[in-house]
């Protein structure tokens, strides 16, 4: 079955989408009866509402999880998500298709989150709390935690710590890049990451998570 249904402008019933499915290759997507990434992009570029909705549904779940990590509340995360998707649809023509669309959308969402952080930086004052300066390295059993628990821990971090922690520990940026992104020095980034790590580790221990010290 051809999946170029919205490219040609026909607004038929949407194929079932799997928000959490891994990125599909064109052949796999076609075999599954879903529009390919290229079909989605082309449909959006033609202004097809159906294609826009399909693209949104495909990536909204993952992007919402990302936004929740950078935001302090769900409402703030939804604002970031909305702004990010609007940017996606507005600038989709500049997407050169040299990388997966999801990666490109993720960058846009991170950028939107950073903009939101800059806007709110002067408005939010969060105390670091009472935490030790350093902790020894520990290992955690991954299955003892779930998404919501860890998300709450991250959201409770001060914004500057949360940003550095997300960018370094989850997104994989180095401290130099983080310094450029947040307009801080590399040393500051390291310092703030270290502080965020101590806070999170303390919280994990306070929740009684079984850990073991790593020598």
């Amino acid at each position, binding site marked *: 079955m051809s999946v170029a249904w919205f490219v040609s402008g026909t607004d038929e019933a949407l194929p079932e989408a799997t928000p959490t499915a891994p990125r599909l290759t064109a052949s796999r997507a076609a075999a599954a009866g879903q529009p390919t990434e290229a079909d989605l992009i082309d449909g959006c570029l033609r202004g097809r509402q159906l294609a826009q909705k399909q693209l949104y549904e495909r990536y909204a779940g993952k992007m919402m999880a990302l936004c929740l990590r950078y935001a302090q509340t769900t409402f703030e995360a939804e604002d970031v998500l909305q702004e990010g998707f609007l940017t996606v649809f507005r600038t989709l023509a500049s997407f050169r298709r040299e990388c997966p669309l999801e990666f490109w959308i993720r960058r846009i969402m991170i950028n939107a989150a*950073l903009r939101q952080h800059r806007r709110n930086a002067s408005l939010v004052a969060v105390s670091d709390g009472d935490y030790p300066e350093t902790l020894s390295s520990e290992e955690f059993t*991954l299955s003892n935690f779930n998404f919501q628990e860890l998300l709450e821990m991250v959201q409770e971090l001060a914004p500057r710590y949360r940003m550095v922690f997300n960018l370094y520990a989850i997104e994989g940026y180095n401290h130099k890049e983080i310094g450029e992104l947040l307009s801080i020095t590399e040393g500051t980034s390291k310092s703030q990451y270290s502080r965020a790590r101590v806070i999170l580790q303390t919280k994990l221990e306070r929740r009684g998570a079984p850990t073991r010290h790593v020598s």
Partner: protein
Amino acid sequence: MSANPIEDNATPKTTGSLEELFRHHLGDEAARPPRAVLWDQIDNSLLVRQNETYRRRLAATRWVAAASLLLATLAGTGWWARRDAGLGAGQLAGTTGTGRTGAPAIGAPDPTTANEQSANYPTGQAKEVAGAAPTTTVPPVAGVAGISLSRNRETTGVMPGRTSEAARGAMAATSTARYAESGLATARPGQGTAWPAAGRVAASADGPALAGRGAGVTDAGAASRVADRDARAHQLLATGAAGHGQIAQAAGFGAGAGGATAAAGAAETGLAAAAFTPAAAEEVSMLATRPASLALNQLAALPAGLAPLPTPALEAVPALHKWRYGASYTAGLFNPNVNFSRAGIAPEYDYSHEPIFGDNSPALTETAAAEYRANLRPGLSQRIALLATRHLKGHWSLATGAEFGQATAQSSSSYAFVGEQLFDLNPFAVREPHPTDFRYRTAGIPIEVRYTNPVKRGWSLYGRLGGVVTALLGVRGEVAGDPEATRTYSITSAGTPYRRLLGTARGAVGVQYRPGVGSWALTAGPTAEVGLTSLNAHPAQNFLHESRAYGFGLEVGVEFGK
């Protein structure tokens, strides 16, 4: 079942560092469906943005439509005025020349008659021969002439300013009546039956009054003088002089006396009948067999309702007015063509190296300026101007006034660049293109030399060349999706990267239409302009290599005065 698919994994319980723990649960594969209403909000925002785009297009379309409508209206008005003027003259000329005599209308002389007349009369007067002489033989015309005759007894003395002309005309009429009565005009065989009737008509007319009418209703100086001369030198066919003179005057020729002239010429040479076309001759013959119709020419039988209408005085050729006034509208494309690069610029205008801008600010701004310039696209420009034009000499005139304009342009950069030095805050954030709309509002004083024909009726060409001193009243750079980066500069803004005063050279050519009546003209044509200075305040290039704004468009205008 958890909403997070990671937690549904059946992977064995493994351990990891804190980073691995968070990456495992919150990393790339983590998902949390947003509220369903969020898509509605996004969809609504997309719709609003789309509507905004349509609104902008609609606004541009409206301007273009308005300009087109204005142009069409001006062109239509000009065509109508020309047609109306031409139609009026054509109808009268046709009535005089063709309907009654079959001879060519005014301006299309019968060659035979014209040749005969050319020895003694100007060509324009000789043209009237064919139209004047036979007029007396056609009942309707004769009737009108007769009315004129009867009325002239009353009007001759009523126009003191024209008494002398009327008196001279009276002499001509008197003589013409005699000539007509004696059958002098029956020069052409086959028309003899007609001419006696005409002679009777003429004879029955009150000669002096008739001639007075002929001269009285045509107050053009030249025509009267011709009538005077002709009346004394020749004997006129009075009714022809009166009737034709009245009509020809309406045709803008002031040819009442011209008609007299022509009639006189015809009477003198005996060629009046030769000017008849076969159709006219036939018409006259038919009328000659209907004495009842001809009897209408008797003064006593003329209906009172056929009183002649007062005729306005002919407009003298006016002198050129020194000043003419007009307005114009121009729509076109404008390219600001700004180069904000500061490479090689004087130190006082170079980038600030204050810490607040960041270490990489100059390089960042240079990159953004290059990207801005690469993506710069021209936009719609519109301008209205109010001009006063002073006639200098011949075809040359000098115009000045005031003009107000608005121009737009589009560009985009990954750094939301609008002309200012950028802060080195977040290089990652500016990797997305930021479409930026620029709007420039100006007020200026144009001075230009014009070459045009200030008196020619109908279509003519014009050319203009001049310069404009423009004040840049405001510049707005609106960055899509980034209101914080949007900048608005007024002419008094301290940090504006734009010049406050600009110089522009401008030229235009086009066509001008000046109707046959009225003292106004329409102009339309392409125009082009190029800046003498750059739009940005401190260009890094030398004067010869500056990037200057330019534009071109279509200008329509109207001008009053001649």
